[in-house]
């Protein structure tokens, strides 16, 4: 197991190197004038017309060979300088830090119920194959995969905010926002639900949760549909294995056969997919936050994209890339724990 982990960790620098190379490669597709904005953190420096720009291009070496540029860019990034975000009017690193908590909160509440619900429904669906329950869950799973986040989100808003007025968009109501900005409130994590508990403020907690309901459903629907499908087919496959037949043949109670012998093994592929689910979710965050007006990284990136704010979008890509690299590593390692065969691969 240890060699397996070491091997995975040793690949890490190569992957990180590749990720930075890919992002840098993308920035090379734009002209030096636009690229300048990734380097300059102080907007005043950009004033002074084409000559000043030329000087800056020379200063940051944007007229030098590509590998030279890559090296200096990498050094800059390693120092935490990602340029200045025009759409947020602050350095990109600072903006990412500011918008991170909202996204973390959204993903946190979307992730774990999805896994539990998806596994449970997939299990039910497989053990009742071809029954009405199976058909309904399968249909839900397939529509879940076909239902775009932006359509689901808008329809949910239309019904639960427009008609019923239960779940408004945003992160907090106006009064709560004012309270959160007052001195009576201590910010610990930036996640309003967590902070509300730490502050001992039940009203803020309820308000924050109320605002989370729709975005969480919107973001997680596609993912639990996926997990349900994987769980169902994995369970069906496991149920056809010889050891399940053996367990049945020796007279074990059916529920023990299903739960102890089949379900445990069926969970292995689900574990990998649960890790991959983070991909789907982090992608979906962009759309979900845009629709529900949650000031997180996704909405920030979407706005930067529309305004062609190159430094922001590149900083965002780099940040997401890093998160994914480490998430992948964790998934790989946990998979190694779950399934001994992986370690020998």
């Amino acid at each position: 197991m240890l060699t397996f982990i070491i091997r995975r960790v040793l690949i890490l620098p190569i992957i990180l190197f590749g990720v930075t190379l890919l992002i840098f490669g993308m920035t090379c597709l734009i002209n030096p004038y636009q690229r300048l904005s990734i380097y300059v953190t102080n907007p005043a420096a950009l004033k002074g017309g084409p000559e000043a720009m030329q000087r800056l291009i020379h200063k940051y070496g944007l007229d030098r060979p590509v590998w030279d540029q890559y090296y200096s860019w990498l050094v800059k990034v390693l120092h935490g300088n990602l340029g200045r975000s025009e759409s947020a009017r602050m350095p990109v690193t600072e903006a990412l830090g500011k918008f991170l908590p909202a996204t973390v909160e959204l993903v946190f509440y979307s992730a774990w119920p999805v896994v539990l619900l998806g596994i449970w429904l997939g299990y039910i669906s497989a053990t009742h194959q071809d029954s009405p329950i199976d058909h309904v869950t399968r249909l839900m799973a397939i529509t879940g995969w076909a239902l775009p986040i932006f359509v689901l989100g808008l329809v949910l808003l239309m019904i639960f905010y427009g008609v019923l007025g239960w779940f408004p968009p945003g992160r907090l109501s106006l009064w709560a926002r004012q309270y959160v900005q007052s001195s009576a409130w201590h910010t610990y994590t930036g996640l309003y639900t967590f902070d509300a508990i730490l502050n001992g403020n039940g009203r803020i907690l309820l308000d924050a949760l109320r605002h989370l309901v729709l975005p969480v459903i919107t973001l997680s629907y596609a993912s639990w549909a996926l997990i349900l499908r994987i769980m169902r087919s994995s369970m069906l496959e496991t149920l056809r294995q010889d050891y399940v037949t053996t367990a049945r043949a020796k007279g074990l109670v059916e529920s023990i056969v299903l739960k102890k012998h089949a379900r445990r093994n069926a969970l292995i592929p689900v574990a990998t997919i649960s890790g991959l689910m983070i991909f789907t979710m982090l992608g979906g965050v962009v759309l979900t936050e845009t629709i529900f007006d949650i000031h997180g990284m996704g909405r920030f990136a979407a706005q930067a994209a529309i305004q062609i704010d190159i430094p922001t979008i590149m900083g965002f890509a780099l940040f997401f890339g890093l998160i994914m690299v480490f998430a992948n590593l964790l998934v790989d390692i946990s998979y190694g724990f779950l399934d001994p065969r992986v370690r020998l691969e």
Partner: protein
Amino acid sequence: MKRFLKSRMLKKLLANPLSLIGIVLIIFFTAIAVGAPWLAKPVYGNHYIIPRDGFTSTPNPPSAEHLFGTTQGQYDIYYGIIWGTRTAFRVGLIVVAFIVLIGVLIGSISGFYGGVIDEVMMRVTDIFLTFPFLVAAMVLVVVLGKSLNHVMIAMIVFGWMGYARVIRGDILSIKENDYVSAARAVGASDVRIIFRHVLPNAIYPIFVMATMDIGAMVLTAAGLSFLGLGSPVGYADWGQMISFARNWILGTHGNALQYWYTVIYPGMAIVLFVLGWNLVGDAFRDILDPRMRGSR
């Protein structure tokens, strides 16, 4: 033999109610795409430009003149959906054709030759897989500039990895088979072995993935259009039509659902289109996957 398999497959496809719905949906949308010039008479030289009836921002409800109503800016929703079907097919088919091609090429080379080539190519694949698809495509579109073609290019650049991995895995196992050694023994070239003996045996999972991906690609393209990164304003594109609806989900006081048609019609078009491909893809998988054979 081939015909037999086809007919048996068709029979199975038609026997399952879910896949039957899928087939009907795909035929339905194909008919709309083909019949677009008759179903919605083009007004401009570029048929994909949605005609406008005035410039008022408030959407107008369905009427005899505008079957599905108009969006903000008075774009005709019916026209947009009909011609948007062509856009959807174009995006889905072109993107999937390219990602399958690239993925199969990289996967086969990687799997067949192994060693250093394999290692390098798979690490490159890993690196491309690092970014969530929508995010990666979004970043590349921003760099390339907003347009539908750039959206397609971006999706191709970040879409091939799944195919490469699947094909590689299959080839690794197929290449150990006796018939491949036999082919090599009689002096068949690498290219011939890959195309005649290895690929045909590895192609089924690719086929299933591609069917599903047509829907998925249309979904992502619509998402990017929704964010305002796709086609220019007024182009027949489902994602963009839904982005038009964003400001109108609340309606007026006392009539909260007043502008329902701005979301529901384009939304239905996307959902049904993607659903069709998913249902058929799902059925293909159940039929083609030998482990699933005989399970029903």
